[in-house]
């Protein structure tokens, strides 16, 4: 394990990695910086970097003009709601496939994954129509259900790979010690399953928060979440970079923070447990 590395080599690695890291992060950094500038500073050539009069004006304008908090609230309800709803359905399903596998388990898992590959645009109009018929168009509940359904396969898969790692012998040992089904679930399985459940919840919130096909196509004014809020900035009106930046910063900040916590679980969740 202990590979001997010269200081020069390590310094070089560090230098290159930091340059690339900062380069990839730069668009985000630039957006955050710009959000604190005036509109004139935002488009200045040569660009202003750190030394300007930092202002919160843009945030105030964005909140006032477009009622940011309502979109934020919609995002929270839709991402949170679809996650909770999805977990209620996915946990039992993953549980049963992990602990009581049948010879069809593999087929069911693969079939679930295949529903994730169904192109959304192929079913856009029927969903649109069903939504109109049921009065679900531009409602939070409608969007919550759709996002739950599109992420359900990922939830089931991710939970399945976590549950699969809980050794069956532990259950048997608990049973030998006289644990009933209730104790078994409450004291043995739940503590072991919680990390997996937490990671799944986290990843799912991120995916639902950023989803931008159904949220753009099935909402108008009332239920639109932050993805649609930002899209409303696509037709520019005069000087607007600083305001766009403020709006963007507010839309991505919560997820950026959650994402930093969940980067390790991401690999497992999005590779369906195939890369460890």
């Amino acid at each position: 394990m202990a590979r001997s590395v010269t200081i020069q080599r390590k310094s070089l690695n560090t230098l290159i990695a930091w340059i690339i890291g900062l380069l990839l992060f730069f668009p985000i950094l630039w957006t955050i910086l710009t959000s604190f500038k005036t509109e004139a500073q935002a488009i200045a050539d040569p660009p202003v970097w750190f030394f300007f009069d930092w202002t919160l004006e843009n945030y105030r304008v964005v909140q006032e003009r477009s009622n940011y908090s309502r979109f934020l609230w919609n995002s929270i309800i839709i991402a949170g709601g679809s996650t909770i709803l999805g977990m209620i359905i996915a946990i039992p399903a993953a549980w049963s496939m992990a602990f009581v596998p049948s010879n069809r388990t593999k087929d069911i898992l693969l079939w679930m994954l295949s529903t994730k590959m169904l192109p959304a645009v192929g079913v856009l109009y029927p969903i649109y129509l069903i939504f109109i018929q049921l009065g679900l168009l531009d409602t939070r509940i409608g969007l919550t259900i759709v996002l739950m359904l599109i992420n359900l396969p990922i939830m089931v898969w991710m939970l399945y790979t976590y549950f699969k790692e809980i050794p069956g012998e532990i259950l048997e040992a608990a049973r030998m010690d006289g644990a009933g089904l209730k104790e078994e679930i409450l004291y043995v399985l739940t503590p072991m399953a919680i990390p997996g459940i937490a990671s799944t919840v986290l990843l799912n919130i991120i995916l639902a928060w950023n989803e931008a096909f159904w949220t753009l196509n099935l909402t108008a004014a009332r239920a639109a979440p932050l993805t649609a809020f930002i899209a409303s900035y696509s037709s520019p009106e005069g000087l607007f970079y600083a305001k766009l930046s403020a709006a963007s910063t507010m839309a991505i900040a919560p997820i950026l923070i959650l994402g930093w916590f969940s980067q390790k679980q991401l690999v497992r969740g999005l590779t369906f447990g195939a890369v460890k």
Partner: protein
Amino acid sequence: MSTKASRSAARLMLAPAVILLLGWMLVPLTLTLIFSFQRYLPLRGGFQGWVGFENYVRFVTSSAFWPSVQATVIIVGGVLLITVTLGILLAILLDQPMWGQGMVRILVIAPFFVMPTVSGLVWKNMFMDPNNGLLSHLWRSFGADPIIWLSDASMLSIILIVSWQWLPFATLILLTAIQSLDSEQLEAAEMDGAPVLSRFWHIILPHLSRAITIVILIQTIFLLAIFAEIFVTTQGSFGTRTLTYLIFQRVLESQNVGLGSAGGIYAVILANIFALFLMRIVGKNLDR
């Protein structure tokens, strides 16, 4: 371990997920299939009779069809090429000993968490705008004429934006795979004097092949469906109209549901070709 009772309980626990996904798949898909055989214009007279395969023929013979297939292939292929190649290099780099590794990882992974509408608009306006974008400032500072990115180099622009979003994902997965590489094997090769390139070619790359396949699989699913990045930037003009975007326009913008649905069925078939091909790989992984 499983008794008969526990097995039926297990089936009951599985049922809601299966039924919901089955409904989610079958009901809309059946409707799309039905619409695809109709002349159906909701805003111009609604249902106007059954037309057999006319919509299917019209969709592929329309002048927009092949360019859209081409755009889709170029965007998906371009993004895969960039993210996988750079992802491998970046993963190898991040696996090396360095100071502040955790912090670099956080910087690299961040773009993945930016919602598509934000990354589309930030790149379009603050970087690629020919007058005020940062890239045009950069070009001018070298005395060059700024590129009008989203019209003159529209495909490249879309590929760059989408690659920026997906490079973190590829890097993170490949990094995870590299970290499971037996470092003793590498050391032995190093001591035997195997040059860097041959170590990469004969040890690292074969070890990564499975992870690379997985990256390609998952990214293809998501890339075939990219929508918001085009919606907020070019709106499908300048040759960036992908198959997904073309169908969207037929269905919702020109409200020609019959024609759009036929396109939708093509998209489903196309996605299924990939799905079948790629599902086999995941299925094999499941057996390990």
